């Protein structure tokens, strides 16, 4: 963490794809500060650059120009090896299509990043058991991914993503493949993580996912067009939501 308390800091960020006439500015001059513990949602139409932004934040892609700071460290200029290490420890990724290792059980999927980061098998087992229990999957630990429902697979993927206690969890359309019940289960897991102080950045099409965030950014053509604080702005009163005729 840097002194400002922002776990993520982005300055004047650009990412271009293609050349000349086919040049696309996927990210077109973005500044962003994400305070530690914030749950941030980014919404926007397909192709607005929100996934590219997420990749830049997590070191999956390098920007054309600008700076990305994660936990007080500039990451857009570090070496490939440094980036690989960063992706293993400092950030956690969750994708729409889960990307679990199909040959490994739920527990083994969660243990894997701990082992890759140099943790002992025992520490890995303990961490996986704890997370699966916390996310309501204790009785699914020995199951292979294909034996799990979509919602269960995504919760395993989230457990894997936070196994190494990353500074930030980055999620790209985490409920894109899920039905309502499974979406609620995933939202409960995010809520649990947020309550524990985890910083989350979630790119989503789903208004109901975005509505649970502390802050909502709208993106269009590679730029931010709106930045709204949702937390603390609502009354929490529900009586205005329905009209009950006498």
């Amino acid at each position, binding site marked *: 963490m840097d002194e400002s308390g922002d776990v993520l800091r982005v300055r004047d960020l650009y990412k271009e794809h293609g050349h000349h006439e086919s040049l696309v500015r996927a990210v077109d001059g973005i500044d962003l500060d994400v305070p530690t513990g914030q749950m941030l949602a980014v919404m926007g139409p397909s192709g607005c650059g929100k996934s590219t932004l997420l990749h830049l934040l997590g070191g999956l892609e390098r920007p054309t120009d600008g700076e990305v700071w994660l936990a007080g460290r500039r990451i857009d200029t570090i070496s490939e090896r440094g980036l690989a290490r960063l992706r293993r420890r400092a950030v956690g990724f969750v994708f729409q299509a889960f990307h679990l290792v199909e040959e490994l059980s739920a527990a083994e999927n969660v243990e894997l990043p701990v082992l890759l980061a140099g943790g002992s098998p025992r520490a890995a087992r303990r961490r996986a058991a704890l997370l699966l229990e916390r996310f309501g999957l204790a009785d699914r630990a020995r199951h292979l991914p294909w034996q799990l429902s979509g919602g269960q697979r995504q919760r395993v993927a989230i457990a894997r993503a936070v196994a190494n206690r990353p500074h930030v969890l980055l999620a790209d359309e985490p409920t894109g493949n899920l039905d309502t019940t499974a979406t*609620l289960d995933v939202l409960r897991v995010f809520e649990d993580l947020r309550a524990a102080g985890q910083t989350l950045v979630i790119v989503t099409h789903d208004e109901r996912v975005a509505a649970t965030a502390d802050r909502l950014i709208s993106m269009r053509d590679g730029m931010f067009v*709106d930045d709204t604080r949702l937390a603390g702005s609502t009354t929490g009163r529900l009586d205005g939501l329905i009209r009950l005729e*006498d």
Partner: protein
Amino acid sequence: MQDALLAMLAKEPSYGYHLRTRLRRALGPLGESMNAGQVYVALTRLEKAGLIVSERADGLPERPDRKMYALTPAGQQRVAAWLAEVSWPKPDLADFHLKLTTAAAARLADPVELVAAQRRELMRRLRDAQHAALAEPDDSTAGLLLEGVVLRLQADLRWLAACERAWSGDENRI
């Protein structure tokens, strides 16, 4: 609410207090603001309309003035008619649509800004509804009502997204 009260009395007579408890359970967190008076006002109206009759029952010490309500034949007919009815609340979108068109035509305000402000307001409502839905257990019937509220807000937000696309695409639109 009157129709729901009648339907609750279709099987057997009941006390006002009991009816209110059943209503609140069905509505869950969305019924928390319903005050006791609302149910009794509705019952009085139904009685005046000849759809129910009341009879003072032997009171308990802590609630001496209990009334037992029962359906009349006219009330029974009304319940049957209510169940057969297919009326549905109409989405009230014309007002906002006209706000956008008139504001743009007279250059009173930027429609895209109006849409953005409206979107923020709906997102806040969705947030309240979504948090309430997350707090409900999976098997709650009130959770189903919250799900309906959430889906409607989601539909409205998608319409606003369509409005935003249209109004930001064509500056000279009237």
